[in-house]
């Protein structure tokens, strides 16, 4: 069996396991069994309170979705980051909080605009929606970070949220927020970005925690189910690694 065949078999098996676990979880939910409680993630837990705080101040929330897009390997990370926008959009519209979203890849632009537009339409406030609330900054990561940092300084931002695919250049955005003394919430998957964000904020979701954004912020059953699946698979993976290490030693 060559490497490609092994990889294919492993992937097919993983998908099968995932499908089975997801199916079992759905069945449990249908039968009315409660889903396990979430462990707190400060990065997302405090976000709704931040919206209320910003509403009182009349200032703006900035969400940086990173330089990832839909046509690259980080598409799923960008989709997970978009869950934050979707979860936050209704609260933002309800409290009439100005929101600015900056993207570094144009493929994310229509999706973010759409998420925001739908939130306005759900409240029958479609006429208040402006497409320019979502801003494409630049296609290069460093230029994007510099442009987003400039938007923070310019737009009277009260809270800075950085969630999505970033590299070390995220330090430029975080630095702009730190200079203004803003509360900063972040979620990143790349070790470079995590290293750059860790000193700036203690409300940081690290690695796979980013994919828990939807579950944490909406507590929607589909997110809770997939998060539980993720946890189960992680335990299985840890045990498999330990067993293999013992067997090989």
């Amino acid at each position, binding site marked *: 069996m060559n490497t490609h065949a092994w990889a294919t078999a492993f992937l097919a098996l993983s998908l099968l396991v995932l499908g089975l676990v997801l199916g079992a979880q759905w069945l449990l939910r249908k039968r009315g069994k409660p889903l396990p409680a979430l462990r707190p993630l400060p990065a997302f837990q405090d976000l709704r309170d931040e919206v209320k705080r910003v509403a009182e101040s009349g200032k703006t929330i900035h969400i940086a979705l990173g330089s990832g897009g839909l046509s690259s390997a980080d598409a799923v990370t960008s989709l997970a980051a978009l869950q934050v926008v979707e979860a936050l959009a209704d609260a933002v519209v309800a409290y009439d909080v100005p929101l600015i979203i900056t993207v570094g890849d144009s*493929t994310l*632009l229509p999706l973010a605009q759409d998420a925001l537009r739908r939130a306005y339409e759900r409240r029958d406030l479609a006429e208040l929606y402006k497409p320019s609330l979502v*801003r494409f900054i630049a296609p290069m990561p460093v*230029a994007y970070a510099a442009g987003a940092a400039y938007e923070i300084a*310019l737009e009277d931002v009260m809270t800075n949220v950085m969630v999505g695919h970033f590299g070390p250049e995220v330090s430029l955005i975080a630095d702009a927020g730190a200079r203004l003394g803003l509360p900063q919430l972040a979620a990143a998957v790349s070790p470079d970005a*995590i290293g750059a964000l860790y000193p700036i904020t*203690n409300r940081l979701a690290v690695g796979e925690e980013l994919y828990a954004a939807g579950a944490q912020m909406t507590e929607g059953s589909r997110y809770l189910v997939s998060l539980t699946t993720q946890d189960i698979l992680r335990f299985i993976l840890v045990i498999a690694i330990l067993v293999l290490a013992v067997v090989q030693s």
Partner: protein
Amino acid sequence: MTTKTRGLISILVKKWAPIFIATFAGLLVLVGYLFPTPLLVNYRGRPTELRDVLVEWAVIVAAFAFVLGVVNMLRVHGGRALRRRKGWFYSLALLLAMLIGSLPPLLEILQWFLGDALPDVQIQKALNYLVFDHVIGALGASLAALMAFTLALAAFRLMRARRGGRELVIGWLFILVVAVVLLTSTPLTGLDWLPLADIRRMVVNVLGMAGMRGLLLGVVLGTVITALRVLVISDRPHSEF
């Protein structure tokens, strides 16, 4: 056309069509990778796997999205410059830079249409050179250099953001690790007898690598599950649901 029919078409176009296209294309590409069957099509005169054709189409769609991005930039910065809002001068500079940057490809398109009517192609090359080497390259390098300072500044700010005993201990540990790795990376003359390289190797290659692998495995799990959620239509970021 009745209102009911119009509503039905609207639901089909806004809700179901994007879901069908995305799920069908996603599953086809995934299955193509998992089970590479000889499902070949003759694409641009060569036999190609169907999944490759779809991936190539995605790149074309992404190019259209870039046009949307440019329109968005024109709208945001054009509005700011026209209404003389705060920062209008920088917006104007950006628009001018965009115009200069778009000149080489525009000239190339003109060349394609006019053939030999445009006498000197050297202008395009000079403009390309000017824009990429002297503006974008230089600005990118200076921003990357700035990053080193923002990272150093972040380390100084670390303790201000940390509250409580546990967080402070972790913060100090972070600074200690960074200091050890940086110090042991430098050739300290006269201290050759110290096992500095071994310490660095231990911190970076064993502890650091173990942490990074754990992190990446978690990310892979999250990625697979999120992707699966989109494929089984549990998540519908592309539809009006």
